[in-house]
Each structure stands twice: as structure tokens, then as C-alpha cells.
């Protein structure tokens, strides 16, 4: 058994833009995921962060093969998912589950909690008699912290946090190895977010789960992830252990993201470096040439940045960065022109 549970290799998901009345002509592509390599180790939590529209949700779905990849491979525990279809793929789904952002819309409003939970058992022939199923359902409610009388009620009768617990219980019904959690707490009240994150951590310890947690909230990812990948416009720009990433970000985009987190101390807040990004996220239908980030990068260099796409390269063991000048920026050999990067105070 290898150490790596999920191996994503050169994954691309391009959505065609179609136009036409009689015949749909493809006039272009949205490069939602454009060449991603990553490996998720057994039992770890891999956090994926990025702005809205950077392709992180699409990547999560492609890992579960809910979106068809255009190119590249997703190898799950030694099996290339792209080779599977129909019944073998359906069987494989038992081992990888998803937790959704919006707990209400991801639960069928017409099904009681009981039938929502039984569905997974039934789909994979895990329901062995009424007695065993009832016991299993009680156990599931117990581990996610829902009252036993929840079974006969309907999703709209629960609070947001409870609904997310139902969603998590549903994912657990089939005893998966991997859970992809797509923004699992962003639709919840802040007071409930921590509860759900702690629940996810408890479950990981209890069942030996592997997580891919997708979020735009850096604090959420820091709380839960062992390793973090930062996505920008369909590609991973930096990947490192969570601590290393937060203390020593090497990619300009990561530095900008981290510097945007406010610090709850007015003096530190005034003194610390703030990197203000100019402009908007470019359209994924027409990504910039060269480094995807060069249009907004304060450290942009005239030579290679707009022509050559930097590969994700290891600058230290376990720390990968997709920037031509990562070392130079870190060593202070390249400085950002004032005005783009301003130190307030």
C-alpha cells in the first residue's frame, strides 16, 4: 500500500464555450483547471485555497470524477479513475465522498433524513436487514452529534450547522477513504464553523479519513489542513506544509493573500507589510500568457514573466512554488516598486 491515496497528474478541465443556433460551435474554452499536479497522502488533510473562480471547486469535482477531465489523470489508490465508467465507477464512489458548501441545497428537500442516509447504504448493498440498518443509522447520527429523533424529520426543519452534520453523516454512510469537502463551512455562521471543523477533525481521527478541504477562507484551512495548496487561475502556484506556508510564503500571490488577513492588534496592523493587488482576476476563458499572475504581480520582471509559464518546482523539501524568481524575492534581490506594494504606517 503506497503512502499516496490520491495522485493528480497534469489534470486539466476545460469547459467549451458554445455558440450557435443550429449547430453548437465551440468558440473557446474556459480553462477552469489547467494543469494541476498534486498528491494527497493517506490520512492527511490537504487544504486548497484560492479566490472565487480560480477552479478549486472544479478541481475537487474532477478528483471525484463528477466533472470529466479534459486531460491528465487522477489515480485513486492505484486505480486510474479516467479508465472507469459505468458500474465500476459507481462502485468506486463508495470509497470517495463529498461534503457540499450549501447544506440545504445538497439535501433533497423531499427526503427525510432517514431515507437520505439509507440511500447510500442501499446503493452499495450495505443495508443488511432492518435491524442492522437502524443500528447503523443511530450510530451515524451519534458520531455527527444529531439527536436520534432526527431520522423522521426533513432537511428544512434543521439549522444550518445541523444540516451540514446530516451532509457529513451521509458521506460517512458508505465508509469512504477520501472526503472532498467543498467549502464545508462557508455557508455557516461563524459560531458554528468551528464546531463543524472540529467534528471533521474528530471523524478523521476516528475513521482514518483523508480530506481534501476546499476553501477561500485562509483561517479555515490553517485550522484544519496539514498541507496547503494555493490556486490561482486554474493552476497551483504554491504548495507547502500549512505552517511553512503561513510563516514563509514564497509565491507573490500567497504573500498578497496572507497580507490581506487583518491582524487584531492596531499597532501590528499599522506596521505590517500589505501587498495590494491591482486589477481583477483575469478571465479563465482568456488566461494571461506566461505566468498567470504576471498581470497583477508587484514583483513582475520584464523578461520571462509574460512569456514563460513557471513550473511548480521544489525550492525546499515539501515546499513547491511556481515562480521564476521565488528565491530572488525571498532574498530581497528583487523588490517591488513602491505604489504597487505599500507599507502603511
Amino acid at each position, binding site marked *: 500500500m503506497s503512502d499516496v491515496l490520491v495522485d493528480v497528474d497534469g489534470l486539466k478541465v476545460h469547459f467549451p464555450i458554445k455558440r450557435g443556433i443550429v449547430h453548437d460551435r465551440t468558440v473557446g474554452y474556459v480553462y477552469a483547471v489547467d494543469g494541476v499536479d498534486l498528491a494527497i497522502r493517506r490520512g492527511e488533510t490537504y487544504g486548497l485555497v484560492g479566490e472565487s473562480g480560480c477552479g478549486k471547486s472544479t478541481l475537487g469535482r474532477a478528483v*471525484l470524477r*463528477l466533472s470529466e477531465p479534459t486531460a491528465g489523470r487522477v489515480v485513486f489508490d492505484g486505480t486510474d479513475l479516467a479508465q472507469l465508467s459505468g458500474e465500476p465507477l*459507481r*462502485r*468506486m*464512489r*463508495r470509497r*470517495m*465522498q*463529498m461534503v*457540499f458548501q*450549501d447544506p440545504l*441545497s*445538497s*439535501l*433533497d*428537500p*423531499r*427526503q*427525510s*433524513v432517514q431515507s437520505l442516509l439509507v*440511500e*447510500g447504504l442501499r*446503493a*452499495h448493498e450495505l443495508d443488511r436487514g432492518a435491524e442492522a440498518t437502524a443500528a447503523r443509522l443511530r450510530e451515524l447520527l*451519534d*458520531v455527527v*452529534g444529531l*439527536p*436520534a*429523533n432526527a431520522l*423522521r*424529520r*426533513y432537511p*428544512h*426543519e434543521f439549522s444550518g450547522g445541523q444540516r451540514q452534520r446530516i*451532509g457529513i453523516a*451521509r*458521506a460517512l*454512510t*458508505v465508509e469512504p477513504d477520501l472526503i472532498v469537502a467543498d467549502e464545508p463551512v462557508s455557508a455557516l455562521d461563524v459560531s458554528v464553523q468551528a464546531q463543524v471543523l472540529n467534528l471533521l477533525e474528530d471523524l478523521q481521527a*476516528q475513521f482514518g479519513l483523508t480530506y481534501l478541504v476546499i476553501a477561500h477562507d485562509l483561517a479555515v484551512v490553517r485550522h484544519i489542513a496539514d498541507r496547503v495548496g494555493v490556486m490561482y487561475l486554474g493552476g497551483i502556484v504554491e504548495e507547502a506544509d500549512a505552517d511553512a506556508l503561513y510563516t514563509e510564503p514564497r509565491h507573490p500571490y500567497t504573500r498578497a493573500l496572507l497580507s490581506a488577513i487583518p491582524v487584531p492588534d492596531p499597532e501590528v496592523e499599522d506596521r505590517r507589510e500589505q501587498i495590494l493587488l491591482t486589477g481583477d482576476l483575469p478571465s479563465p476563458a482568456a488566461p494571461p500568457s506566461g505566468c498567470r499572475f504576471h498581470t497583477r504581480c508587484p514583483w513582475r520582471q520584464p523578461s520571462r514573466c509574460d512569456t514563460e509559464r513557471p513550473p511548480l518546482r521544489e525550492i525546499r523539501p515539501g515546499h513547491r512554488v511556481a515562480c521564476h524568481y521565488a528565491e530572488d524575492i525571498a532574498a530581497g534581490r528583487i523588490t517591488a516598486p513602491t505604489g504597487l506594494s505599500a507599507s502603511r504606517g
Partner: protein
Amino acid sequence: MLTSSRRQRIDDLAAGGGAPDAGVSLAVSAWRRLRRSPLFLVGAAIIGVFVVMALLAPWLAQHDPALRLLDDQVSRARNEIPPAQPGHPLGGDQQGRDLYSRMLLGSQQTLLVAVLATVIGLGGGLVLGTLAGAIGGWVDSVVMRLVDVMLSIPSLLLAVSVGALFARQTQFTVILAVAIVQIPIFARLLRGSMLAQRASDHVLAARALGVRRRAIVFRHMLPNSLGPVVVQSTLVLAIAIIDAAALSFLGLGAADDSVPEWGQMLGRAQDVIDSHPQLAFWPAGAIITVALGFTLVGESLRDALDPKNRR
């Protein structure tokens, strides 16, 4: 695992918190809202009276609707039609038949037309809409182009054309003509909401769970798509009555008028509408009232099923 004391606390909370054991499904909560809606109550009362009337018509009608009992009071030359009189509260028609009995028995035919046309239209629309919405791809294209062609023809014209296809018009050809017009409307409606369901999170969740495709379509997509279709069916009950009346009025109704039907009675009344408007008034009034009843129920059902109105 929860510790036993914590579990105990949760159980106590659940037991003492007054939370009901059995939840309220969407259908039940829709029904609770519906019961409080005055529009629904009025519509349901109209439909109730109409259905009871149709069911009890053979016992309520005092006369055979085909018998020309008042023939001696009919004079074509002097344009005389029997007026209301003891034993015949609404008088007679041009052929001396008891109008009251014909109105009562006519409700049976009208109900039959409405229900059968709606059921056939709904059935056809369900099949086509489910095929298009669940399978997609070229099946969707073929079905929807077919539907577009049918929708491009004005509905009454289409019904008239279908009705005229048959050599001999009977009640059944009327039903078929009215039903076929409704099929594309149902199909388009269902396909639209099926597509919305297919892209929804809970269908994606079922897919991720590894639920079989057939189960996804019939357990998740179809039940969640039926709301607008149910509303449309109640409205179509009204439309079918009006369309059938229009067909009868245009002479494409059942050729045999010994079995009375309101639309057909209205059609026959047009010759004498100047001198004897009561012959048109009663069937027209009945059609309008019943159509209103179904429309009221349909509208209030639409409101009740709207998820935005929940709670």
C-alpha cells in the same frame, strides 16, 4: 464517540425540547398552507359541487335528456322555444328537450373531457419531458424540436386540425384533440424543471454517493420537478373544458347530440342567441364557473408549492 453523559444530555434535550418526532414533509406543509387559502376553498367548493353534480346527475335529472318532451311548444316558424315552467325549471331547448336535465347530464361529459384530456396530455408530457430532461443529448434535441413544432401552431388551430383529422367526430376525438395540444406544454415544463434538478447540488450529491442513475431520476429529479406540472394540470383541467367547448362550438364536437355536453349545447345555441339567450347563458355560465374553480385551485396550489412561502 460521544460519552454516555453527553449522549444522555442530547437525548434529554431532544425529548424535552418539544421537537416533534415525525417531521413535516414538503407535501404536508403545502397542504397546511393550502387549507388556509380562501382562493383554494372557493375553488375547491366549486369543483366539489361540480363533481357531485356530475356523479349524481342520473338521479337529479328528472327527464331523459334525449326525449323531446316539450316538442308541442316548439315552433320553428314563429321562433318559439319552451320557456321555464313547472317541472322544467329552465325550460326546453330548440327541440323541446328539458334544458335542466341536459345541463345536469352535460356536467358528466364535461368532467370526462376535462379529466381524460388532462390525464392523456399529462401522461404524454411526462414521458417526453422525462426522456428529454433525464437523458439529454440528442434525445433532448429531437424531443424538444418536436415540441417546438407543436408549440409553434396556435393551440386552438392545432386542436381543430387534430379534430378534423378524424372522419367522424365523437367525444373521444374531442378529448384526443384537446389532449394533444397539452402534451408539448407539459413536456417543456417538465423538461425545464428536470434540467434545473439535474444541475442541482442534491442530484450531484446523489451521483457522488454512487446512487444508480434510474434511482436518481425517479427518486430525486422527477419528484422535485413535479410541482409546476401539478399546478399546470389543474389549470389544464380548466383549459380543456374551454377548448372542448370551443371545438364543439366550431362544429368539431361529438356529432351525436343525444348525449348532452355543455360546449356542444353552447354551440347549438348560437342560432337563436338573439331571441333566446338563456340557451347560451346556462352552459356558458357553467363552463366559466367550473373553469374558474379549477383555475383558483391551480393558482393557490402554485402559491402553496412555492418553496419561498415555506414557513
